[in-house]
């Protein structure tokens, strides 16, 4: 399939990807956000910062993560499938690529207190981890509903010394945890840095988080070149909650139009059941958490409570970069239901010996639908491991074993 749409990987100076992005924030946040906007690029370019980040990514996170040829899955689908093993990152998901970067940045900004939101708990754990590493105070906001369904991660955060604060408003999931984190930041204008966990939020967050995650596609390029003699895959497939693992896996391929970018959203019970989180299918342009993007909302502009079995995809928005890639047709958007994700979590476990996170399982679920051929070279971003979802998997065990 040819793809003629072109796109750029970075926003303009005001944080716009086409018509999406920007910084729609109350004045109370302006100081903090502007400080970040003025400094993130220069800090990220400092040789010392880069050296420190490189060292941590290598020795602490365990990068580069392997690019693994999934032979049995490839044979089954009739193509060549590589898995980018972000599940092997320290703490079990790609989220830590961003948190190590942001904690170093926060220290250079002189901040002493770190706040974060979390859905699946992977970003919360990754934040609590780097705060422990650097001896910084850490407060993680987590929807009360998510605290129940991702209990092991709550325990991990506490063990790492973080304070986990339940978000009790709204749907008590990721959106509400993000609201609470933003309110906390408003109330702490001096000493606090907010480590957002995905490519969402006001500019410069989407760009900054995408840059920290771009190490994923940087490595894929090198590894593919080594393994196949060609640095470009034909397809990159990733699940999209806010879109950080997808942004990282796509980043260095966005400006190579031959590479098909496949974004997989959570359809929940099905796109049109009223129990879904497929933002591009159900959303309209609007503002959520400080940026203009696609947002699931009522006709009155009230944000809708989404549904996904995976806490990390249970979000009524999508990063502005992805709204842009959707709108201009550069990325292909697919979705997988709760049931498909569960089925594929078990299937990948048995076929490749890898227990994927529920979020990641969504990406696998669409492989049979992509019309892949033996000539294709597909990279699936295996964004995280499934240990945190064992509770859910155990409940479903009877149906799949």
């Amino acid at each position, binding site marked *: 399939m040819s793809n003629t749409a072109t796109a750029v990987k970075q926003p303009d100076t*005001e944080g716009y990807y086409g018509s999406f992005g*920007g*910084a*729609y*924030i*109350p*004045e*109370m946040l*302006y*100081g903090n956000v502007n400080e970040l906007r003025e400094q993130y690029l220069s800090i990220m370019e400092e040789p010392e910062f880069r050296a420190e980040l490189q060292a941590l990514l290598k020795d602490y996170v365990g990068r580069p993560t392997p690019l693994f040829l999934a032979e049995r899955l490839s044979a089954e689908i009739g193509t060549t499938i590589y898995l980018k093993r972000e599940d092997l990152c320290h703490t079990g998901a790609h989220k830590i690529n961003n948190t190590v970067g942001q904690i170093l940045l926060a220290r250079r900004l002189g901040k002493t207190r770190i706040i974060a939101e979390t859905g699946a708990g992977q970003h919360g754990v990754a934040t609590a981890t780097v705060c422990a590493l650097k001896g910084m105070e850490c407060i993680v906001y987590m929807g009360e509903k998510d605290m129940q369904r991702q209990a092991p991660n709550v325990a991990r955060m506490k063990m790492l010394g973080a304070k986990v604060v339940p978000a009790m*408003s*709204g749907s008590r999931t990721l*959106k509400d945890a993000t*609201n609470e984190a*933003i*309110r906390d930041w*408003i*109330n702490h*204008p001096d000493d606090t840095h907010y480590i957002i966990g995905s490519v969402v939020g006001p500019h410069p967050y989407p760009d900054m988080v995408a840059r920290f995650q771009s190490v994923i596609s940087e490595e894929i390029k090198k590894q593919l070149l080594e393994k196949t003699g060609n640095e470009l895959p034909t397809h990159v497939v990733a699940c999209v909650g806010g879109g950080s693992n997808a942004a990282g896996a796509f980043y260095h391929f966005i400006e190579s139009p031959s590479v098909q970018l496949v974004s997989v959203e959570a359809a929940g019970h099905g796109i049109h059941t009223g129990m879904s989180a497929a933002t591009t299918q159900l959303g*309209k342009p*609007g*503002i*959520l*958490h*400080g940026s203009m993007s696609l*947002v699931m*909302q009522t*006709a*009155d*502009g*009230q*944000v809708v409570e989404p549904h996904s079995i995976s806490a990390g995809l249970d979000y009524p928005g999508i990063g502005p970069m992805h709204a842009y890639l959707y709108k201009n047709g550069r990325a292909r958007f697919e979705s997988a239901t709760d049931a498909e994700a569960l089925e594929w979590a078990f299937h990948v476990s048995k076929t490749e010996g890898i227990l994927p996170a529920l979020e990641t399982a969504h990406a696998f679920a669409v492989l049979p639908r992509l019309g892949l051929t033996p000539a294709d070279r597909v990279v699936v971003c295996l964004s995280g491991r499934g240990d945190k979802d064992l509770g859910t998997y155990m409940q479903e065990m009877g149906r799949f074993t």
Partner: protein
Amino acid sequence: MSRINALFKRKPSHVLNVYCTAGYPHLDSTLPIMRALQVSGVDMIELGMPYSDPLADGPVIQSSSETALENGMTIDVLFDQLSILRQPISEGGIGNELPVILMGYLNPVLQYGIEHFCERAAAVGVDGIILPDLPPIEFTRQYGAVFRKHGLDFIFLVTPETAEERVRQLDALSSGFLYAVSSSATTGKDQNMERVTDYLQHLLSLQLKNPILVGFGIKDHAGFMRVCEQAAGGIIGSAYIRALQGQVHYEDATQQFIHSILHSS
């Protein structure tokens, strides 16, 4: 002269602006509450349009917004309710003098259509708009002209952290008054009043074009009088919503609350 300008001309100090959430505590209580506020002696009303994700608001206003949304409040319903806003009190309105500001978040307004929103707001007799998540850069780029075209004042917020140059920019873009947030905080937080005094002193020294009303954290007579020493007046939100919680006779509750703000006990 606009109602807001006329107010500050008539009453350059001790202006009391009270916030209430449209559709709270009941869908149809919006106008009765506004009337009760007027009768009790407030000078201006800031009417909140409820939003599912009010980032700048603390728990009290969040919960009143949630209730109002559950009650069925929407922008359309609100404008229908406000169609008699400028009728005399005896006919269910609040008369033609008291300025009314709509406060809300940008997304519902964008979905409604900014042009349509301004048109209806102006038609029912609303005087000004506060949208805390509409930043000056976007205001200048595309929205400011629409508010101006419909004769609506737009009021920006400044905080103690806002740099002088930016305060001047926000003052220049605002009309009616400038909203000084007493400290960087969500609504309803207690404030360190001494720091607020220093901050207001500084704002005054800038000789801004707009009168200044101070909001966030004022909850009693002493707090109100304190900000009035420097600013043109104060804005009370969470403390009033709290006073309404669980009250059946909200007219009485309003009378009592406003009395307690205007008079020392």
